[in-house]
């Protein structure tokens, strides 16, 4: 049975090419690996290799022919004595360089449908009720994070902590203080200074079903590891058709600390917030830090948990409950109000809260929303608030272009445009690398005055 040799596609974009040269002539014996012809693709001159053996029965496209379409029959190979027909045999499958694949079974790829199916709606759970009479105790964010890790490590043997100085040094920021003593060196692991490597090892361990907590001394250093976080941790569930999964938490301080300059002062909320396959959490209060870190450790997905060095020592009231777990993806209304919605998260909340206090003195009743989770974002809570207030100001330390505030502004105009009484205002860090000089650093960060000014602008007061 003669076999049609087809013009092959030899690059992802090739549609046609030039048949430059035949290296075999009619009557020649052809064996596997022999170069039959040279073709010119859109990128290079390529060789067509034979796969099966036989005689070159006929050449249907002369050398030098330009614009030969991909999958056109260019020659036929078969056994001696087979008829040269000058056209493909009826009913036989077209085939580049060899064996027959039945054409009638071949389903050409469908045209991409122009209607994209709608994204499934994500509904965030509400926070669990705190039973009446529950005691609260004052704790720092640092203590809350430590308790969250310790509780989860007690609960699940598969949870372990790795990172630089997490064990014997007791944590560069003392978040992991005492954990080595309680859990031992098997589960609290000092790594070398090698972010790219240990992030990847964490991902591999998570693929195997363990639940690593990978601490970055700061998220600035996670830039070295960002390929493993995005390409390996975030995308593999999708690329494996749901087989793999990567239950890992990447956590550490994020954003500006104080006077540490451009390379150590950066907010990654918007960076990671863009990536499908990640959850991104950025708590402000100690209670949220505890409840959300516990949730992050239990979550079967990779979670980016963005802390803040300045907040580590701040005290907050934390409910005294055995197992305080909060839902990822749910915003918290920090303070109800009717005149304007201020949306923030993480360190930005400290500006927002102070601004709201001062605005109250000016007779402006601000609603303050703590987003808590950047991805998936609880836009419903924001939108419901704006329906009531008609005005919104966002506050964050990150840069303006492509910021979290930009996304919120987009969502508001897309969802509740008719409710708006003023354009959405956005307070962000300035569009500069973080300067070292104390005065310049102060200017580069958002401040309470800017938030107040923005609120007055959108409320026309």
């Amino acid at each position, binding site marked *: 049975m003669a076999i049609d040799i087809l013009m092959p596609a*030899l690059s992802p974009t090739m549609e046609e090419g030039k048949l430059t040269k035949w290296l075999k002539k009619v009557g020649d014996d052809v064996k596997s690996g022999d170069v039959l012809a040279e073709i010119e693709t859109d990128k290079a001159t390529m060789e067509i290799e034979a*796969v099966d053996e036989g005689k070159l029965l006929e050449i249907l496209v002369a050398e030098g022919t330009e614009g030969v379409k991909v999958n056109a029959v260019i020659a036929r190979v078969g056994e001696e004595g087979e008829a040269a027909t000058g056209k493909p045999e009826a009913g036989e499958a077209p085939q580049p360089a060899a064996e027959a694949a039945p054409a009638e079974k071949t389903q050409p790829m469908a045209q991409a449908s122009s209607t994209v199916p709608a994204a499934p709606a994500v509904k965030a759970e509400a926070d669990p009720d705190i039973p009446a009479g529950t005691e609260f105790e004052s704790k720092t964010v640092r203590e809350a994070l430590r308790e969250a890790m310790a509780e989860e490590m007690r609960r699940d043997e598969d949870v372990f902590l790795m990172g630089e100085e997490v064990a014997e040094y007791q944590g560069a920021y003392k978040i992991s203080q005492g954990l080595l003593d309680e859990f031992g060196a098997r589960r609290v692991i000092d790594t070398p200074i090698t972010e790219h490597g*240990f992030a990847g090892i964490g991902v*591999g361990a998570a693929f195997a079903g363990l639940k690593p907590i990978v601490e970055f001394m700061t998220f600035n250093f996670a830039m070295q590891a960002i390929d493993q976080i995005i390409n*390996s941790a975030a995308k593999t*569930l999708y690329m494996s058709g749901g087989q793999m999964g990567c239950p890992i938490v990447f956590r550490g301080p994020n954003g500006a600390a104080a006077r540490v300059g451009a390379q150590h002062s950066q907010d990654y909320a918007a960076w990671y917030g863009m990536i499908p396959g990640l959850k991104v959490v950025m708590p402000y209060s100690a209670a949220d830090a505890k409840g959300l870190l516990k949730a992050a450790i239990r979550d079967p997905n990779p979670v980016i948990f963005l802390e803040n060095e300045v907040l580590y020592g701040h005290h907050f009231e934390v409910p005294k409950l055995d197992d305080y777990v909060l839902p990822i993806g749910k915003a918290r209304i920090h303070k109800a109000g009717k005149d304007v919605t201020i949306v923030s998260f993480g360190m930005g909340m400290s500006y927002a809260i102070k601004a709201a206090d001062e605005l109250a003195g000016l007779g402006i009743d601000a609603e303050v929303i703590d987003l808590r989770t950047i991805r998936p974002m609880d836009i419903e809570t924001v939108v419901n608030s704006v329906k009531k207030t008609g005005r919104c100001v966002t506050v964050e330390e990150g840069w303006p272009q492509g910021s979290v505030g930009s996304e919120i502004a987009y969502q508001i105009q897309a969802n509740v445009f008719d409710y708006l009484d003023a354009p959405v205002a956005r307070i962000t860090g300035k569009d500069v690398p973080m300067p070292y000089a104390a005065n310049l650093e102060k200017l580069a960060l958002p401040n309470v005055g800017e938030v107040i000014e923005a609120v007055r602008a959108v409320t026309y007061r």
Partner: protein
Amino acid sequence: MAVRPATEKRTRASAPTSGTKKPGKTSNPTVNYQVAEFDKDDEFKAYHDMLLIRRFEEKAGQLYGMGLIGGFCHLYIGQEAVVVGIQKALREGEDQVTTSYRDHGHMLACGMDPKGVMAELTGRQGGYSRGKGGSMHMFSREKQFFGGHGIVGAQVPIGAGLAFANKYRGNDNVSVVYFGDGAANQGQVYETFNMAQLWKLPVIFVIENNRYAMGTSVSRSSAQTDFAKRGESFNIPGEQVDGMDVRAVNAAADRAVEWARTGNGPYILEMQTYRYRGHSMSDPAKYRSKDEVQKMRDERDPIEQVRKRLVEKGWASEEDLKEIDKKVRAVVTEAADFASADAEPDPSELWTDILR
């Protein structure tokens, strides 16, 4: 870094004795020519498994030419002895395997279904990743195959992470992670070497030195071309192995697996191999001569070596071998038919498997 020709120059060694604790030399200047004793069944299986990979890859090349496979497609033709020889030393479904984007051969060697692999290449719903991964991104939990990674070198710490999990759980599984001579110059490889040795992780680093990192030859890209030495400063034992001889590969793999499984930490195997085709389907491979490729095919072909032995020892007739070839072709044709006829993923798949 010359791959030595002439099989008859090799010294034969008996199959490795189990329980040996002696690592390979850390600075072996020559290729290790010790070969495992293969009995008739071993030779037949090696022949079959390597032929399956070769025919599968040839078919994938054809389907690419027909436009049924898109994007990038990296064929394994020429390197078959590496995965087949190593897989023989592993416990299928327990020991983990991770590799780069040139992964079709590794998946077949791990026992994954050719239909599922080919259907992933054509982006169909019956593919291992339901059409959402493609040639470079496939996985099988059942076979403990952890990809299929598209970023050069990224699989190396992941493979060590799987080994970390073995050690953490206290089982004696080993993790094998393959990467190329090109990836061997990535920084994360050395970060991983350091931690793997520091923590004595049961991981075997298999460097498939096929001489070209895309179009850049080893001598133009590497200051140290003896890749077995790349772990030397971490005290990771390493050996250079004739990666065209499945018996040599298997003997080295047995040593490495024994080393890692018994708690001695990582091991490096540099497999001196060769890819016949371009880096990917669209690579014209102008950076090497046709003679170089032809010489390899004629003198060193891994499948031909086994075929010759089978015939010379009187273990197989030409008819027997034709029968195997026929069977393999039938499997590959069935895979190609399935991969061509299967439906594309349902549009709703766009939104699934992003989060659990």
